[in-house]
């Protein structure tokens, strides 16, 4: 097992280098916006523009720039500095990470807690109103754009602009360490909105898996043993049906930790997603590189974790 993990981690590092190279190519070789121009404005003379380029290190050959970036990262764990605020990229990421983690983890808890029972009940009560409600609701949840859902949620429930003021509105997020209660209440709407799509997908997925699993032979055996129907469904059925969901959830978590930019923007949560978006608007390449690498990191780690989890959950996979 240890050897396996080590191998995967090493591969992950190779992948990260590739991602950094790709990001570099996209932004430095094929730029759509020039950070020097953005900073200089349309007023600046070519001389000033050149000066700004130089101070940002953008006039050096591309390979030299990439090498500097890579060596700084590998040997000094330094992700560089923002072109605009000169804040260190590392500090920006660290500053934003707790918000993104809060958002992601809360959403995950909600979607698991809601999707699993829904999926199971919809499968065991096929054709009833519960099933129809779940399937219909799922369709809605999957189709509704997150941004729109967020706006609707705010217009309904935000305490500053909502029709039924219940929960703190956009921009009210504070770190947990500052005010735990406000942290919690300010995240409820974002959690629900973010969880919506995922709940829908997972409930449907689980329903499908459960229906299949419940017709398997071993479920019949469980019943033949005289186990209670509850035990048959939850202990035997769910246990087998849930494995693909766990792996999917792991990947989704990895993706979300890279930043849920739409949710963060609507609710004004200062997370990695917003950082990334603002960096793109400003053509702040060091920050973009930092957020992309961080997101890639999470995805890679999530992949490894998911493979390990899968082996744990399904003993048949261990012999492979």
């Amino acid at each position: 097992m240890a050897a396996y993990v080590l191998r995967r981690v090493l591969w992950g590092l190779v992948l990260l280098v590739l991602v950094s190279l790709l990001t570099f190519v996209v932004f430095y070789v094929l730029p759509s916006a020039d950070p020097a121009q953005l900073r200089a404005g349309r007023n600046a003379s070519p001389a000033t523009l050149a000066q700004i380029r130089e101070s940002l290190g953008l006039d050096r050959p591309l390979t030299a720039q990439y090498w500097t970036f890579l060596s700084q990262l590998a040997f000094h764990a330094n992700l560089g500095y923002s072109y605009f605020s000169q804040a260190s990229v590392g500090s920006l990421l660290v500053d934003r990470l707790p918000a993104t983690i809060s958002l992601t983890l809360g959403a995950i808890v909600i979607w698991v807690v809601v999707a699993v029972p829904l999926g199971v009940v919809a499968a065991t009560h096929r054709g009833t109103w519960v099933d129809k409600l779940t399937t219909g609701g799922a369709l809605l949840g999957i189709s509704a754009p997150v941004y729109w859902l967020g706006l609707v949620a705010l217009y309904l429930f935000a305490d500053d602009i909502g029709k039924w003021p219940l929960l703190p509105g956009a921009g009210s997020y504070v770190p947990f360490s500052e005010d735990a209660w406000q942290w919690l209440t300010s995240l409820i709407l974002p959690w629900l909105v973010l969880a919506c799509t995922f709940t829908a997908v997972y409930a449907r997925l689980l329903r499908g898996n459960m229906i299949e699993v419940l017709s398997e032979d071993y479920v019949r055996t469980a019943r033949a043993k005289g186990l209670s129907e509850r035990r048959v469904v939850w202990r035997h059925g769910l246990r087998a049906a849930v494995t693909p969901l766990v792996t999917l959830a792991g990947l989704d978590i990895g993706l979300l930790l890279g930043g849920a930019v739409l949710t963060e923007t609507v609710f004004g949560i200062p997370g990695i997603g917003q950082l990334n978006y603002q960096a793109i608007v400003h053509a702040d390449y060091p920050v973009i590189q930092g957020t992309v690498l961080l997101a890639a990191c999470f995805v890679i780690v999530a992949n490894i974790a998911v493979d390990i989890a899968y082996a744990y959950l399904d003993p048949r996979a261990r012999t492979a």
Partner: protein
Amino acid sequence: MSAEAQPAAALRVEDLRVAFDTRDGLVQAVDGISYSVAPGRTLGIVGESGSGKTVAAMTAMGLTRGARTRVSGRVLLDGEDLLAASPARLQALRGDAIAMVFQDPLSALHPLLRVGHQIEEAVRAHGSEVSRAAGRARAVELLELVAIPNAAQRIDAYPHELSGGMRQRAMIAMALANNPRVLIADEPTTALDVTVQAQILALLRRLRDALGMAMVLITHDLGVVAETADEVAVMYAGRIVEHAPAAELFASPQHPYTWGLLRSVPRLDAPVGAELVPIPGRPPSLIDPPSGCRFHPRCAYVRDRHRMVDPALESLAGVPSHRVACLLPETERRAIWAGLTSGAAASPVVAPESPSSGPAAGPASAERPA
């Protein structure tokens, strides 16, 4: 010998009928079967796929209950009608007084739970005071009972980590967890290779004797039945067409279908190059069964009357324990069988005519000398 004369039957099935309401129509899977099994005795139920043998067994366990299932008749377990039992009562009896072993242990055992755990579950489901330690100990005991070596280690294995034979033993162990009075084994050796088959059958015999269970052994394989069963019931199209003590059935089978089954088994002493003799045709539709004798489209000895009259299960004169549902006279049947076994060209008494109902059956083949 009728079942009534035996000491109290552990399991008695009376006129069981099971139909499924499907989109294509009402499928009459089991159309009035009756049998009984006494403690310590084995009944073998033989038939091809679609004969209804598995459905009957599963219905006895209450595993076919559903909105679209229509069941009538009685299934008496020590006098208690399982078909009329409440779901709670049924759940209490299943795995306790009546247990079932299934065909493919790789798919019948939960792939993600350890074998020991699954056995433990069976134990603890029916004994509310059983602790985990006690359950585990019992599971080890059961594995030893079914002759799995290294039971204490094997108990933590997953089903895929065991060989086919071990898995089936484990499933048997699971079924025996609570000393059932009746054990139903549905094709327990079909998924196993021949040598393991023999071992499992020997095990089943041993256990039956040791624990005094009534056993129902469902199979399509006559060889299995020959070794293990005391009585044999041959099922066709949801009905029992022949029912006799095992030795009697093999000595003088009376139903053309049974003949077909016996003759289609390859024999080591057959001449080289001899062809197998299959039963022509396919199993009949259970939604729209053939008129008259259900077997007539595939029978080499069919007569006009057979297409119109549905034979009942009747005892042979002189051998009351041997019952058969066939319209051919007994003497004729004996003659035909004698002819078939002697290898002489068995020409049909009457040339078969083309079938008039039911699915297209192949032309009844005239027997050719081997």
